[in-house]
């Protein structure tokens, strides 16, 4: 199922590397005590350090370091006990210091890997090149005034992790899977909320193409600042096709920075990055090297939560779930948490079916996320309990679930209000069986003539007569006894 682009003279493959800029979850900024919350008034979450007032100095937020190490461990990566913050020097409206404090030659996290579950059931391992910490820039607004750009520094200094993949990705789909997987790992760890529409995760994509079989990397372009998984996939597809077309037309690809216009589905060069940059990195003399001890790292490792790959394996091993179901359930942390709560004390396989079937279906239809589900995990747990203890039948449970989803009421309340408890009184069921047998002599003859399957028809009639509440097992037993007798 490899992804290829048809060119004039043959097939091409695309080579993709991603740089994810993930906002670290923290109360305050990387080097100042200003708040990081989203959506505050302009320049209200800015300290004198963030505004680069003369004489202001950075002091590192230890929680941000812990979060970066945690993420590195989640990516199965090497943690560098000695790392260095450097200054990346360039001028821009939203960069008040005239440099970004970042890590360059010595990042806090080295090589790691991420495992992707492909649609065809195979797995692909994608290499992580590095993870480093850096400050975010402020925000420029170009459309507020005809002659001026407005600058808000609220984001200036917010801690980011830049996660750089190796150029191991080979299709837009793989890029999408990779992004979702990294996001999922960070959400499990609580190190980044991954909300791309709020800008807390942004992606730069490096794309090049080459004829199938060629091993050298060709010139790549970089598409900056993509803010949804879908746009990343679209932009890669567009850019790869553009490059193949260019080669077919005898043109060269020039290394440049592009912006992607999702509405027109096109890329264009970024004007403000026309000039070749020379960032003049050097160690920030306002900060000391970041030195961690192995003990500190091990303490963080020891406190890591279970991550999606491990959780999936546990769901398979302990609950007997299929790899597919387990994969679906662990993909998002919220889903996995929901499932484990719902399944607690119940049959895990049945719980998995309910979550991936009925719940996902209803959420999809309602356009809601699992966090917004009107049926909480505890409510689902109760519903599954009612099935397990025979209070309601599986069939009735579906109606109860729908009512729960609509009203938000508890399963027990709905069952009581609507009188949906399963009839387990054999006398009551026997009466219904007798009535149905008496009213349908032809079908009785058919069954007694050897058509065993006709029993299903009788069951249906009795369920109809009891409003679906009769215990199916009892109905079967009584029917067989009476019909054969």
């Amino acid at each position: 199922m490899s992804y290829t682009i048809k060119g004039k003279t043959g097939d091409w493959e695309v080579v993709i590397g991603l740089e994810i800029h993930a906002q670290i979850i923290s109360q305050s900024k990387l080097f100042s005590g200003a708040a990081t919350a989203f959506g505050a008034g302009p320049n209200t979450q800015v300290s004198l350090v963030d505004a680069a007032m003369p004489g202001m100095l950075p002091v590192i937020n230890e929680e941000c370091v812990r979060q970066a190490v945690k993420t590195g461990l989640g990516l199965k990566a090497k943690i560098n006990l000695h790392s260095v913050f450097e200054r990346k020097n360039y001028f821009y409206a939203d960069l008040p210091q005239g440099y970004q404090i970042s890590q360059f030659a010595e990042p806090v996290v080295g090589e790691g890997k991420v495992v992707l579950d492909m649609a065809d059931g195979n797995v692909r391992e994608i290499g992580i090149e590095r993870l480093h910490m850096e400050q975010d820039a402020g925000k420029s607004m170009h459309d507020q005034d005809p002659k001026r750009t407005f600058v808000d520094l609220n984001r200036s200094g917010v801690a980011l992790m830049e996660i750089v993949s190796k150029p191991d990705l080979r299709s837009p789909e793989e890029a999408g899977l990779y992004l979702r997987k990294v996001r999922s790992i960070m959400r499990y760890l609580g190190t980044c909320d991954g909300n791309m529409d709020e800008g807390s995760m942004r992606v730069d994509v490096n794309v090049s193409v080459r004829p199938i079989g060629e091993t050298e990397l060709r010139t790549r372009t970089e598409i900056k600042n993509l803010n949804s998984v879908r746009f990343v996939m679209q932009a890669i597809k567009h850019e790869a096709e553009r490059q193949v077309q260019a080669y077919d037309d005898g043109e060269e690809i020039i290394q440049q920075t592009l912006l992607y216009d999702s509405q027109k589905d096109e890329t264009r060069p970024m004007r403000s990055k026309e000039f070749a940059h020379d960032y003049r990195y050097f160690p920030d003399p306002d900060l000391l090297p970041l030195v961690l001890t192995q003990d500190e790292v091990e303490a963080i490792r020891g406190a890591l939560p279970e991550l999606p790959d491990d959780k999936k394996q546990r769901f398979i091993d302990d609950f007997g779930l299929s790899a597919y179901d387990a994969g679906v359930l662990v993909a998002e942390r919220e889903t996995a948490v929901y499932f484990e709560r719902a399944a607690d004390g119940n049959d895990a396989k049945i719980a998995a079916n309910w979550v991936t079937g009925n719940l996902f279906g209803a959420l999809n239809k309602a356009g809601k996320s699992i966090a917004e589900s009107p049926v909480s995990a505890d409510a689902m747990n109760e519903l599954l309990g009612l099935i397990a203890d025979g209070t309601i039948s599986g069939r009735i449970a579906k109606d109860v679930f729908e009512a729960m989803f609509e009203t938000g009421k508890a399963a027990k309340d709905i069952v009581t209000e609507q009188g949906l408890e399963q009839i387990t009184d054999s006398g009551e069921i026997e009466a219904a069986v007798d009535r149905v047998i008496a009213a349908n002599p032809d079908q009785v003859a058919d069954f007694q003539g050897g058509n065993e399957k006709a029993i299903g028809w009788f069951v249906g009639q009795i369920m109809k007569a009891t409003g679906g509440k009769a215990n199916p097992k009892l109905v079967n037993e009584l029917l067989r006894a009476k019909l054969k007798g």
Partner: protein
Amino acid sequence: MPININDVKKIAFLARIRVPDDALEPLAGELSNIIGWVEQLSEVDTDGVQPMTSVADMTWPRRADTVSDGDCADDVLANATEPEKKSDGGFYTVPKVIE
């Protein structure tokens, strides 16, 4: 290595400092002199010597993750050269940038 006029133009742009045309040549001379003088460092054998990153023999100080600063837009904008009035939004402004 001597610094020529084009080098001066290039580094002046990197540093965003406008240098009048008539100052380029004298400046190239001065900078070349300085660079020529510091190049005596090449005499020093530094094989295997670590570059100094800090004279301070200390471990990095750590700040607890609490909100202890910010919420001072008036201070932040107090000296701005062309600020938006706070009633208009409280932004810094620069000549329009086209991305």
